[in-house]
Every structure is written in structure tokens, then in C-alpha cells.
């Protein structure tokens, strides 16, 4: 494409945006809304995934020993289990420590209500196993199941499963919402450009009269959609990052153990994705409506 052609397309596109500011505003704000919500759900999904990974990597298996097991058995078992792959650390919790955790204030009223007291403590020895990864989880659990001293164990499977299900649900909902919004954007862009085509019918006819090809007639419209898509994406990226910053500041104190802020590299990738989506939405919408350009093949006004 020659420079003069490109500059003509850009000039025409900018002139049209200036001439129809309301239509351009509607198009830009629709694409921006769709992109903002899509970007927000992408960020939420990424955070959920990170959170899940964080929980998994810090996962803990709590092992309850049988009542018959004493301090020596608990320590011996702890040493044995430490040799297993992916076991990072094991802490032996005595019945006294368990009781203290259960009743931190340790007053008589609590003991009498629960029928438990330091003198009559039914709590068994416990082992808290910290694993470094989920890779060997199944093998660790099999080992635990085969130990005669172990009464039962919990490792938060239900909790992980719940979080995973929630994460999947959020991903699915994000895709569904983003698809619906993308469709709405396409529909609005399609109709906006059809309206513009109708408004500029005379101009298109004159273009045809003086020998413009269909691709040349389409040029300014596609350029306009490209500009609007880019502006909408820029607006959406700006709003998303500002809103994310504000929300992260408010939510972070509630979950101090998890760092909400995303690495810059991830945010840049997200911004590029949003920019490409904005351009794609604009250009695809305009291409759809410009299929009708063939109706303008007759150069004289009576032809339309």
C-alpha cells in the first residue's frame, strides 16, 4: 500500500470520527466495556490459579496417631516419614499442644463444657507434614495408609477441590461473559458501520464513479474501526490497571499470606492480548458490514 493511500485512509477515518462523535463514542465505549470485563475476568482467573498453586505448594497433611502411640512411637514415625520424597518437614504435636490449640484461653469453663481437661486429655499425638509439591502426594498417602500406628489423616483435599471447582467456574463464566460481550461489540460495530455506509452513500457512489476499487472504498472504514478498536483497548487497559491497583490495595490486607500483585511481565502480556482483541473486534465488525459494499456497484444514485 502506498503512503498516499494510507494517509488518505487515516485522514478519512479521523475525519469521519470527528464528524460523527456520538457514533464513535458508542463504538469505543462498547468495545472498551467488553475488553474491560474480559480483562478483569482474565485477571481474576489468573489470581485464582496463583492462589490455588500457593495453597497447594504450602499444603499440609495432618496425621492423627492411635491413642496407644506414645511420644517415642510418634518421634520414630516422624523420622521414618521424613525420608519420603517431597516431605519437607514434620512437626510432632503432643496431646498437650493440641489441647492448647483447641482451647487457647484454657479456662475451667471451657474444659468442663467439653468434658476435656489437661488431666483427662483424650487427644492423640499428631504429626504435621509439610510437603514441597503435589507430585508425590499419592505415594505419601499410600505410605501413611500402610502405617499401623496411624489412626487417620487429613490433607485438605475437599478444600482444594472446592477452590479448583470455583476456579474452573470462574474461568468458564469469564469465557462466557467475554464471548457474549464480544458478540455484542461485533453487533454494535456492524450496525454502526452500516449506518455510516448509508450516511456516506453519496460519497461512496462518487468514489465508484471516479474508479475506486472495493478495497479502496473499504479502506477508510477498516482504518476507522482499527483506530476505534485501539482507542477502546487503550482505555480498557488503563481502567483495568487502575481498578486492579485500587482493589488489590483493599483486598491485600485481608489475605496477607498471598501476594495479589501480578508480575509486570504478566500485565504487559495481558495488555497486548487486550489490544489485539480490541483491534480484532473493530476490524472484524467492520469487515462483516462491508460485505454489503457490493450493493454500491452501480455508480449512479438511482442504482441504490
Amino acid at each position, binding site marked *: 500500500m*502506498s503512503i498516499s493511500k494510507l494517509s488518505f485512509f487515516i485522514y478519512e477515518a479521523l475525519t469521519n470520527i470527528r464528524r460523527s462523535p456520538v457514533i464513535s463514542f458508542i463504538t469505543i465505549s462498547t468495545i472498551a466495556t467488553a475488553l474491560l470485563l474480559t480483562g478483569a475476568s482474565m485477571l481474576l482467573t489468573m489470581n485464582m490459579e496463583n492462589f490455588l498453586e500457593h495453597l497447594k505448594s504450602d499444603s499440609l497433611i495432618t496425621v492423627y496417631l492411635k491413642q496407644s502411640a506414645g511420644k517415642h512411637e510418634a518421634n520414630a514415625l516422624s523420622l521414618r516419614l521424613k525420608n519420603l520424597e517431597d516431605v519437607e518437614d514434620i512437626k510432632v504435636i503432643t496431646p498437650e499442644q493440641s489441647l492448647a490449640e483447641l482451647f487457647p484461653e484454657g479456662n475451667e469453663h471451657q474444659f468442663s463444657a467439653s468434658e476435656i481437661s489437661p488431666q483427662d486429655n483424650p487427644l492423640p499425638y499428631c504429626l504435621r507434614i509439610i510437603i514441597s509439591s503435589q507430585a508425590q502426594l499419592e505415594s505419601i498417602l499410600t505410605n501413611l495408609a500402610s502405617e499401623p500406628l496411624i489412626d487417620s489423616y487429613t490433607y485438605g483435599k475437599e478444600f482444594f477441590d472446592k477452590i479448583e471447582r470455583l476456579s474452573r467456574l470462574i474461568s468458564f463464566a469469564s469465557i462466557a461473559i467475554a464471548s457474549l460481550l464480544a458478540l455484542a461489540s461485533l453487533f454494535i460495530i456492524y450496525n454502526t458501520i452500516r449506518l455510516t455506509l448509508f450516511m456516506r452513500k453519496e460519497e461512496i457512489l462518487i468514489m465508484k464513479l471516479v*474508479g475506486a476499487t472495493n478495497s479502496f472504498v473499504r479502506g477508510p472504514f477498516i482504518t476507522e474501526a482499527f483506530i476505534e478498536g485501539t482507542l477502546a483497548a487503550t482505555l480498557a487497559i488503563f481502567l483495568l490497571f487502575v481498578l486492579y491497583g485500587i482493589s488489590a490495595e483493599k483486598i491485600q490486607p485481608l489475605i496477607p499470606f498471598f501476594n495479589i500483585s501480578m508480575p509486570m511481565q504478566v500485565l504487559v502480556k495481558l495488555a497486548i492480548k487486550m489490544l489485539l482483541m480490541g483491534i480484532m473486534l473493530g476490524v472484524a465488525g467492520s469487515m462483516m458490514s462491508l460485505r454489503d459494499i*457490493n450493493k454500491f456497484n452501480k455508480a449512479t444514485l438511482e442504482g441504490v
Partner: protein
Amino acid sequence: MISLKDVTKIFPNGVRALNKVNLDIKAGDFVFLVGPSGAGKSTFLRMLFRDDIPTEGTIYIDGKDITSMPASRIPYLRRNLGIVLQDFQLLKTRTVAENVAFGLRVIGAPNSAINDRVQEALEQVGLSHKRRMYPTELSGGEQQRVCIARAIVNNPLILITDEPTGNLDPMISNEIMNLFLEINKRGTTVIIATHNHNLVNKLRKRVVALVDGKIIKDEEAGTYAYE
């Protein structure tokens, strides 16, 4: 240059606008197309710039059959033609110079060439001093001259005009006709469909008369009469 062989046009409503028309126009000719309203003059012209195609017959321009030409080639045909219609068809939101430049921009002419050629075309029609004005600020005759400037800015081989003086007073019509003579002198073939008896009779150029879609007269240095 232009050759029509047995050209017939029947519209979907059954109207036969052209009936077995045969005509040859040489390069550099100046032809008046006359006839009553509904005789087929406009249909004839529209066939020449492929705004419509004949039901039967063939039209050749510069040796090429334009009736079987694919739609994608039509723009390239029109780039060799200058077309001026009765309703001025100017873009009201653009200046005179921008309207004239439009014909060059759509064919992708370089910016450096556009200014010079627009200036030249506006000088030819005597409107270079109004290049920054908008069409609504011009008289009817001036608007028509802008259309002519836009039509000739590409140095077309053929200038096709449909009732170019239809809305203009006699003095302006004379001016416009003189402009066509000037353009013709430079080698451009000029075809004018008109009802203007006075001009046709005064200029004594080739006259082709169409009545009910048939050529009933083709006369060198002819007059308007077709009865």
C-alpha cells in the same frame, strides 16, 4: 475507440430502453446524443461506464469488450473515463480542490502529483481562485465546472456527460460547452447527451438521435432535429 454491436437493453419491467443499437465513435470525436425523454440516452451512457450491462450485444472500448468484463475490472475502466452527470454529485463537506482531488486520491496518485494536477484542472475550468470554497458557496454553473474538473483531472480518454447544462442558464451553458470543446481539442473523445437545441444547432458537431431505443439519425455536423 467505442463500438456498440447490436446492443439491446430490456429492463426487468419489460421496457426496451435500447433496441439493436450499432454505433462506432472514433477517438477524438465530439458527439451529441439527442432524443426525447425516455429515448434511452441515459441508458446508453450508463452502458459505456458499465453502470449497467446490455441484455444482448457487445460494447467495445479501446478494443476491449466491456460487457463481459469482471466486476473487479470496472474501476480500471472508469479511470480512463471522465463522467459528468446532471445532478452535480459533489461532496458538500469538502472544498472545491478536495472534490477535484478525490478523483486522483481514489486511484492512489502520489500526494506530490495531486496538487499540481488539481491546480491544472481548476485552471482549465477557470475556478482556481475558488479552490478553498465549498460547493454550497458556488453557483450551479460553477458546481458543474467543478464536476468537469474532477472528470478531466485524470486526463481521461473519453468524457461522458449526461445533461451537463440541464440546470444552467444559456450563458453558463455556453461557457460549459466551450469548455467541452477545449477538452475535445486536446484529444479527448466527448459524448454529450442533451436536450439543448441551441447549443447542438450552434456547434454543428456529430449528432446521434435516439428514439424509442433505436438510432434514427447519425449525422456529421448535424442539427438537433430527430422527428
